[in-house]
Each structure stands twice: as C-alpha cells, then as structure tokens.
C-alpha cells in the first residue's frame, strides 16, 4: 500500500532527526513506588554523565511518544518495571528475537501504553527508519505504594542494569576523559570534557592527598566572577587550558591522567597516580 510506506516521511520537517548511537529510554511513573525505576535510572545516567553519542530519555508514562523518540537512533535500550509475580528485583532481559513480534496494533490506547505497544507502534510509525537493534530490560517491582521510594531490591537491580548498559552499550567513542599536565605547569582539557563539566569555563582547584597518590579536584563554578580559574580556549577545536602549577607540587606529574566525575562532591577528579608507562619504565630500569 502506497500510503503505508509514506508515514515516516511525514515527520520530515526539513530538519534531520538528531542522530545518536544509543538511545536509552526509562519508562514508568515516579509516583508509584518501584514503578519509578525507569525514570530514576535515566536520572542516574544523566547525573553520572553519558558519552556524547548517547541520548537518554525519561519516557515517564507518555507511552506512544517513546516511539517518536526512537527516530534517528541506531540502537535502543528500554528500561521498564514489570509485575509478573517473580522475586522483587528480578531483572529480565528480553532478547531481540522476542521483540521481533510484539503483537498486533489492535487495542492500543494512548492512556495505557506499555513498552511492547511502543515497539509495535514504532515499527508502524517509522517503517524503514525504525531501529532494529532493540534491547528491553524489565525490573520486577516489590511494591507500588504511591509516593514510596525505590525498594532496596529494585535499587540494587537498577544498579545491575546500569552496569550492563555502561559495559555493553556505551562502547562508542565517548567523551575523552583524559587531561594532560604540561611541563610548563598547565593542564590541558579536551573540548567535550570541558563543555560537559565546566559550561561556564570556570573552576576552583584543590589538591587532595590520598594514601596512595594525590588527586586534583576541579570544582565547576558558575562564572569567573566567583573567583577560581578561567578555562582558556587554546585551539579551534575548543580544547581548554588552565594554569595548575601553583596548586600542584614542585615535582610536576607531567603527562596524561585519567579523570572521573564524583557525583557526591560534584567535582571532576584528576587521578595523579603515576602512569602505567612510568611504572614500566621504573621496572625495566
């Protein structure tokens, strides 16, 4: 039927859909206890940061709109709660072949849309543009008390699912999380990392001595007016540089260092441990 092949073209308003390698959608109602697990997982991913080519979506209870969000995605991960009678916190991973046939279109209702309806609807809506690489995680609920927090079992299961998603799906070229200390005492920060963590191009610095090695803590500031250091642009790519000589010890840890985002402190932590290469050098020498 000619009309059947034209649906996805109706959505073309002259702007291409935002492309992304992985789309993660969390579905559920945050007001109903463990039903919140999908949106809470999305919130966690957002707070911890995701690679630049990953899009995360709080699907809430809108249902049909999950299908519209899938436009432009290469791979899709859906996380939802389930209530099957299994032990609370049980994680179901629905294999792709099971998702090939999610049932008929009949009986859909905008007010009671479920993940499998969304996939069926997405195939109808997007036709040849519908992503084929789809994974669904379902987390068995313990309770659905209005207003309750996530139960312990479901929170633990959510952490498991986050681990799986990070390990298996966030494998693309994510944000380069390395920084470089130069022999002039400057710290070079890649453009994407700077943009993600220091949108106002300003940070405060602190050296924290750990037992094994020191850490440099970089605290995002709202602007240079609040004191701290200005992140200066050093090339057209948008890489940034700041002077760290005054903060670090005289024996500058020249070279590349890994960073991690500490959610609790709200700081970017630069791990100043001696690099692998240095250790190898010492052993061979």
């Amino acid at each position, binding site marked *: 039927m000619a009309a059947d092949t034209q649906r996805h073209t*109706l959505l073309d308003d002259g702007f291409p859909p935002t492309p992304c390698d992985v789309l993660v959608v969390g579905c559920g109602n945050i*007001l109903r206890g463990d039903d919140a697990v999908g949106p809470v997982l999305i919130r966690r991913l957002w707070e911890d940061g995701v690679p630049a080519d990953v899009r995360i979506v709080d699907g809430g*209870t809108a249902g049909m709109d999950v299908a519209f969000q899938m436009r432009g995605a290469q791979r899709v991960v859906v996380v939802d709660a389930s209530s099957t009678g299994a032990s609370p916190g049980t994680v179901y991973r629905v294999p792709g072949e*099971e998702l090939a046939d999610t049932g008929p279109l009949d009986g859909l209702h905008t007010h009671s849309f479920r993940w499998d309806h969304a996939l069926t609807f997405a195939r109808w809506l997007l036709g040849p543009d519908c992503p084929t690489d789809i994974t669904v995680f379902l987390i068995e609920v313990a309770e659905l008390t209005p*207003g309750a927090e996530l139960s312990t079992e479901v929170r633990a299961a959510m952490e498991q699912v986050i681990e799986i998603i990070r390990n298996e799906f966030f494998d693309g070229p994510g944000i380069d999380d390395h920084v470089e200390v130069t022999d002039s005492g400057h710290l070079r920060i890649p453009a994407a990392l700077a943009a993600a963590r220091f949108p106002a191009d300003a940070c405060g610095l602190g050296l924290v001595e750990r037992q094994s090695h020191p850490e440099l803590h970089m605290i995002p500031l709202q602007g240079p007016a609040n004191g701290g250091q200005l992140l200066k642009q050093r090339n057209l790519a948008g890489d940034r540089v700041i002077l760290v000589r005054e903060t670090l010890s005289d024996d500058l840890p020249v070279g590349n260092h890994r960073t991690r985002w500490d959610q609790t402190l709200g700081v970017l932590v630069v791990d100043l441990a001696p690099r692998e290469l240095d250790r190898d050098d010492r052993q061979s020498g």
Partner: protein
Amino acid sequence: MTSVDMFVSPLGRVEGDLDVRVTITDGVVTSAWTEAAMFRGFEIILQGKDPQAGLIVTPRICGICGGSHLYKACYALDTAWATHVPHNATLIRNIAQACETLQSIPRYFYALFAVDLVNKNYAKSPLYEEAVRRFAPYVGTAYQKGVVLSNKPVEVYAIFGGQWPHSSFMVPGGVMSAPSLADVTRATAILHHWKDNWLEKEWLGCSIERWMEIQSWEDMQAWVNENESQYNSDCGFFIRFCLDVGLDAYGGGVGNYLATGTYFDPELYENPTVEGRNPALINRSGVYADGKFSEFDHLRVAEDVTHSFYEGTRPLHPWEGETKPIDPAVGRGQGKYSWAKSPRYDVPGLGHVPLEAGPLARRIAAAAPGAAEHQDSDPLFLDMLQKKGPSVFVRQMARMHEAPKYFQWVMDWISQLDLQGSFYTKPQELVSGKGFGSTEAARGSLSDWIVIEDGKIANYQVVTPTAWNIGPRDSQEVLGPIEQALVGSPIVDQDDPVELGHVARSFDSCLVCTVHAYDGKTGRQLSKFVVNGMV
C-alpha cells in the same frame, strides 16, 4: 418492556480504570453510573512536602496532560508567593500549554474517537466506505497523517521546556528556559509543517483564516458546501458523517458548563493574584448554567463525596478539602461506588450543580458578552448550542475548532518573545499562604489549590477535568455530567454498544493515564530470560 443491566468494562481501549454501568430500556439508556476504579493518592503524597513538590509530582499524574499540570501547579505557587512573572515567561508558558493541546487534538480525534466511526453499526450509511477508508485504525489515510503528525507540537514544547512529557521547567517567577533565535526558528518551522500538512491540508481543506470566519451554524453548513476541498476534507466529511448517522442527536449531558480559562496576557498577569485572574485571561473563564452566564469564582467550587470512597459529610472547598479514603467494600454498603469525588459549583440562584468541563465549555465561555480587547470572543458554539442543542457532534466540533484558533495564538506569542529580555524573577518563598492555579487542559478545566503553612504544604487538592466530568452522583442524587450524557443514548446493538463509547470518549476522560499498566501474562512468558538468577 425489556430492561437490561449492562456492565461495559473496559470502554473499548481503556484498561479497566473507568467502568461504566448503564441500564437500557427498550433500546435507550435510562440510567448510568461511572465508576472510577482507582484510588489516586496524590494529595496525600504532597502533604508536608516542600511547597514546590507540586511542580514535580502533579506533571506525573498524567502521561498526556503533564504540561497542563505543570502550568496550573506553577500558578498556584505564583499566587501563594505573590511572585513577579516577566512577560517572556508568561508567553513561553502559554506557548507550551497550547502546544500540548495542539498535540492532543489530532491524536485524540483519530486514535481514540474516529476509530469508532468505522463500527459495523454504520455500514448502512452511504458514507460508511469513505469513513473506513479515512478512519480505520493504522491503515486509514486520515488516521495515519493525523496520528503521525500529532507529535510535532510537543517537539516545540521540548524545545522550550527541555522535555515532553513530564517537564518541570515552569517555576514560580518564570521559566527555566532561555531560547535562542535558532530555537525560535526551529519551533516556527515545526509548527508550520504541522499546519501545512495536517491542519490545513488534511483537516480543514482551506486556510485557517477562512475557517475562522465561521460565526454560526449556518456559516458552518455553508462552509461545507462552499467547494470540493472543504466538502471532502476530514472536517467536511466528519460534519456530513455525524449528521448522517445522528451523532448530533444524543450525548448532550447536563447542558451546564464551566471553564476556568487559561493563557494570560503578559502585561496583565505580571503579578499573579487569585483576584486578578479572570480579567487577565485570554481564553476566558466562565460558568453557563440554565441558559445564563456568570463569572467564574473559585470559591464556589466544592467537592462532594456522598458516593465516593472517602470520609466526609458535606461538600468542601478544596482549600479545606480532605482526602480520607475508606475501604470500598465498606463504602459500597453506604451507597458509594467511585474513587472519583464529585466536584460541584454553587451557581448563583441554582445551588450546587454538576458542570461539564472541556472544549465545549471553553467555547461557550468565549461567547459570553463583555470580552476585553485581549480576550477570545467567539459566538460560534453558543449559536450551535442554541440551534442544535448539545451532543457528541457539537462537543467534537468545539474541540477541533481550537486547533486553528490556538495555532494562531501560538504564532502570535512566539513573535512577541524578546530573546534579550528576562525569563525569570527570583521569588520570595513565603512560609505561609494560599494559592489557586488553573488552566484548560485539552480535556477541560484543571486546577490546584494549595495551602502553605510553616514553609510546607498543609493541603493540596487537584481537581481534574476528568473529575468534573466522570464524578458520581452527589448528595442530591444528581447524576454527574457523563452519567447524564449517557442517559437517552439509543443503543442499536446491545452486544456492541458503540454509542456509549462515542458519548464517553467525546469527553476524552483520562483516568487510565494515572497508572502505568502491567501485563502479568506477558511477564510470565518472559520469565525464562532472567539474567540475574533471582527466580
């Protein structure tokens, strides 16, 4: 005489949260009971919380009207805290709220309402084949365009509000949004795409401007026959189909209407107050009962729980409202039958009566005399009400009429944005106060009443359009609006009472959206794919 009790559950595609029981005598509905099968504990969740909790909690009440919930929750706080709202923020709030409704109009019409027009009961109509060609679910030509393009307006919501559904970007004192020129360009392009491809090309078959010239029922009939394009547009066809199968002959309801109004003039509502609300509205508020207009006064609203599963002895204004659930088994012994409360309005001279909320109520309010320069003044639906009486058809046309009207407003509001200007004024968070915020969700008046004491929520009550419309009988045994609308419906086939679906869906109640549905059956089939071995 044959009398049958029918229990219709669910209403076609609703998964059991709204049950409708009707009695049919000689092929006509003689009485009806609407039973909301779910307890909604949102007011209880909010008690004792930070005053701003309503901005997070209420948009999650519904997966369809989250933006409307946010809009009124925000104004409830604006009035309680006596905030200042910059012009830009009022415009952005208006744009977002209207875009949510612009999405709902075609999505509801094609996916929920028009699919019933292909029911075999209408096979005798000469227009039946054409109805099937257009409206059959998933394959109908009009269904496909309408449902697919329905998403475009909420893409605009997401540009200004960060996400749709469930955004929390409206805050007391303004919006957390600072659109760029690129955002405005994109939003404009998306809305024009929606208008060009669905609203004008598919639905109207003419320009928005031509449609907006219609002032009366005669004008509308003349419009249908004016040319081929209008005669054969979805709108032209829908009008002809309704008249042919008699959708203009039943489903009238209580005939009394309530609109709390929405969209504010930026200058007139810079400092939102409860008292200053009515004159600042663009989409006017108003009550029309017993053929007379009166001004809307929120203090005249009260909720009756005589037939609802709650404790309570008298109707209470929401500021002193209570939500004390009781065991339904006990409640049934007391003649209670629904989890919905019955909102009633104390009409001067009439007492507490049920009022219908929704697009038809808004259109009637828009016809009241005395509109100010900035306010919607539109005589069309009062004319249709007086000449044809209320019905499923008139209610539907009222809803569809708002698509071109709101589109024009949104484009106007976008053009008024001052991108260099302010979008937020930090408010002073008062430790006590009372607030009232309200809007018109796609399906009708939606209001929050908040009482703040010691910096916390002492009382919070949400009255939804669904509650206005599906509420049960009150202490005077007066039927709720949908109950009343069902009475008198002719039922052609008792095994497939499509007429009940038309009536109930013409109100577009959204009960099911309060839940996230699970399917135990699907789950069991999946249990073999456990990955963490806890079973």
